[in-house]
């Protein structure tokens, strides 16, 4: 649990550094997100006069749900204690509840910025979540279980190229980009109304509340990269009952996967422009169709 929390800002810092380098800038230091979070946490929180108890407690609930979801994804080893408490569907739904409360707090103050963020976020979610569920179905039908540990074990032992797995990978990458508010869906580095969805919902937050939400967003990015690594590239994961050397190998391979994932994400982001808001449903619709196609192929035959 603590590993995901410690690594999340590092992943964020790494992506920002690589992006800056690709754009021929020097970029912020690698550990800057940690400093930002510390600075924000120490500051006094300024909240609007008509903010309610939901506004004040929202960031903690959002962070807790995202943290629990991220902690349930096997990072360096499978079969850890309580990994059976929630499966892939539950992880998707936990992300969904974090998003539910984020959209609610966006509407709390009663400004039009919050409304625009919440309404657009729920529109993206209405397509991203079913796409995610269809990906879960495809993967679960291949591996015979929705538990992430079992899925990882299955892919490790029965590695083979399958059409439906390829479709699920492409769909999951699209969903991950949409859910984490990366280009081409949303720009995480902007504060212009035309280009923001996530930033619009958290516009009124400051201080430790903002720090919690930023940490939650970083944890969510880590969660999705770990999910792609765990389901599609599980090599290096220590099995259940592994010894210390297996864990060390697991941690090393996990760090390598994070770095590669972050690098590829930044490569994709810098090579494409942000889409118009109403092109995003087409983009997410591709993910939904790929997921549906993968599921259909698995229903129709066991060999796809």
């Amino acid at each position, binding site marked *: 649990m603590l590993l995901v929390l410690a690594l999340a800002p590092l992943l964020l810092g790494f992506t920002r550094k690589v992006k800056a380098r690709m754009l021929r800038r020097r970029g912020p230091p690698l550990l800057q997100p940690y400093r930002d979070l510390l600075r924000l946490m*120490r500051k*006094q*929180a*300024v*909240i609007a*006069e*008509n*903010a*309610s*108890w939901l506004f004040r407690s929202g960031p*903690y*609930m959002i962070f*807790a749900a995202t943290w*629990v979801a991220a902690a349930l994804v096997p990072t360096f080893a499978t079969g850890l204690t*309580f990994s*059976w*408490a*929630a*499966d892939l*569907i*539950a992880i998707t*739904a*936990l992300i*969904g*509840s974090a998003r*539910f409360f984020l*959209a609610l707090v966006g*509407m*709390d*103050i*009663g*400004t*039009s910025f919050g409304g625009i963020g*919440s*309404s*657009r976020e*729920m*529109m993206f979610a*209405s*397509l991203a*979540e*079913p796409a995610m569920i*269809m990906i879960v*179905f495809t993967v*679960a*039908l291949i591996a*015979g*279980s*929705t538990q992430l540990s*079992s899925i990882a074990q299955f892919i490790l032992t029965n590695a083979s190229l399958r059409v439906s797995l390829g479709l699920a990978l492409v769909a999951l990458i699209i969903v991950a980009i949409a859910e984490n508010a990366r280009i081409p869906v949303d720009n995480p580095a902007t504060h212009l109304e035309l280009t923001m969805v996530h930033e619009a919902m958290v516009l*009124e937050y400051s201080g*430790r509340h903002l720090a*919690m939400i930023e940490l939650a967003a970083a944890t969510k990015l880590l969660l999705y990269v770990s999910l792609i690594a765990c389901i599609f590239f599980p090599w290096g994961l220590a099995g259940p009952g592994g010894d210390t050397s297996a864990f060390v190998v697991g941690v090393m391979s996990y760090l390598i996967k994070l770095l590669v994932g972050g690098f590829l994400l930044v490569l994709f982001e810098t090579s494409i422009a942000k889409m118009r808001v*109403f092109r995003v449903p087409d983009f997410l619709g591709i993910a*939904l169709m790929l*997921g*549906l196609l993968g*599921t259909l192929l698995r*229903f*129709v035959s066991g060999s796809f």
Partner: protein
Amino acid sequence: MLVAMALMGVAVLLAAALLAMALQALRGASHFVYPLCFMACAVLLGIACWALLTAADPAPTLVLPIGLPWIGAHFRIDTLSAFFLLVTNLGGAGASLFAIGYGRHETAPGRVLPFYPAFLAGMNLVVLADDAFAFLIAWEFMSLSSWALVMSHHLDAENRRAGYIYIVMASFGTLTLLLAFGLLAGSGGGYAFSDIRSVAVALPGLTLTLVLIGTGSKAGLVPLHVWLPLAHPAAPSHVSALMSGVMTKVAVYGFVRIVFDLMRPADWWWSILVIAVAGVTCVLGVLSALMQHDLKRLLAYHTVENIGIIFIGLGLALAFSAYGMQAPAALALTAALFHVFNHCLFKSLLFFGAGAVLNATGERDMEHLGGLIHNMPLTAFAFLTGCTAISALPPLNGFVSEWLTFQAILLSPALPSWALKLLVPAVGAMLALSAALAAACFVKAFGVTFLGRPRTPLAASAHETDRASLAAMLAFALFCLLSGVLPGLFIDGLAPVTQGLVGAHMPAQTTLPWLSIVPIAESRSSYNGLLVFVFILISTLLTIEVIHRFASREVRRGPAWDCGFPDPSPATQYTADSFAQPIRRVFGSVVFRATERIDMAAPGDARASRLTVIVRDLVWEAFYAPVAGLVSALAEWLNRLQFLTIRQYLSLVFVALIGLLLLVSIWL
């Protein structure tokens, strides 16, 4: 013995109805009637729990010498009846408790009080009935008493129209059920359920269609759902909660009883019809809910979506049991029945909240509300719990039944039929889509009503609900949490029901470590609501503690930031229609032909510009408007019979007489 006690409870409810009629003149009559109903429902709830837990075999039966002389009236409590009796009376007890506070504000108590206990009695009798006549009489009694309640605020033209459409649809439903029972009884003519079970079904396709139409129209399956969003908001809020939360479940009971019990063994192609209709119902229900800005109409459309989810589970159970796959059938049936229970809980809670808002502000339209969380914090908390539960978010109960349904869908590739192999993934996608859209719908409902700034002075001057209503709402919120965190207990409670219907039950859940639930086998997947809840709680408290101790806990209040240009007018915040605009543009342009008509004033013209959103109900335009037009045209043409001359009337009588004599001579 048990049945006799249950029937006495129903008799108490009928007596309460008569008492309410007698005490109409008394101003404080609701102080007697609603607590009496609460106690009767509580007793019936206890009887139902006892019957479900003991699961006696053979089930207790009682035959009363009332009704038709050669049949009498059969009543029976088997496990299925016990479960639905539990659901009905839980909803009834909650609604009665809520009404103790809510009923004080009723403007026309004489039109509501006599029919409310009658409605409860009717619903209970449908679940208890063991022969076709008792079932149909109780069904019609339930429809008529709820129609009287829908028409209670008859001065509003919209309510009158809602009542008219409701009575037409209800009568049509009862007609199809009558025909279905006639087909089921067959040429032997025995109408008791035990007789019907021993007769093989003669025309299964026609019977299934009739049953689906009859029970589906009461439950709210597309395209028979059109009365639901009109009638449910028209009734007083506690009655809306009963209609949405309980009466639709009684309709589901009717379907399960006839198709799973009386028409067994099932045929595989029945499930295709059920699953296809249910999938369409899901998506259309939630999309229609998103287009609404009337709070109660939004909730009523959402009931349609949840009925779709229940019928998807039932259809899957039919498919599995038709192929003899008993364990997956038990899983699908448990998922559907658990969703019945959950939906009764959270939909009643949400309607109670809407009733509380209506009482406090006098408004049902979300566009005139806002900022209610400041004046009504406890109501807002209970409503938020209901919204979270209905959006299927862990660790509450909506997620558990969705999870079980998804697990049942994941077992479907084993079904041999190709039609099902192609249909079930598509319906799974529709289910996932409707779950995500439901979350969007309830962010809109809660956010526009309770959050933000008050849009009208009525909303700014709201006051908190009274204690009895709050007690009902918070009790249901607690039940939502309990059934989400301890689902194993409820699943084990449903085991005798599924055992009776499909011959199998889910593995015993309470023996599992840490109270997880497991659908088929632990290696496939498991879910532990308690652990997820505990993890979230620990993470939240740990975070709060760490931050408050090591960082800052200071707070300063200031004006809203709003990018530096805060607008003092609350009209600039998002309304319900503007919140739904992105989704309306993505989905609504296809499903509703939704368009926006903009009428801009020319520069220099001081009149207001106008933006109109046009959403068309294609189901109404495709099915109902043509039928209504046809019936109107036919009635207009037949009206000529009113204006014939005396000679034409006499010749009509003469021709009819000749015709009848011919008939008698030829056939006898």
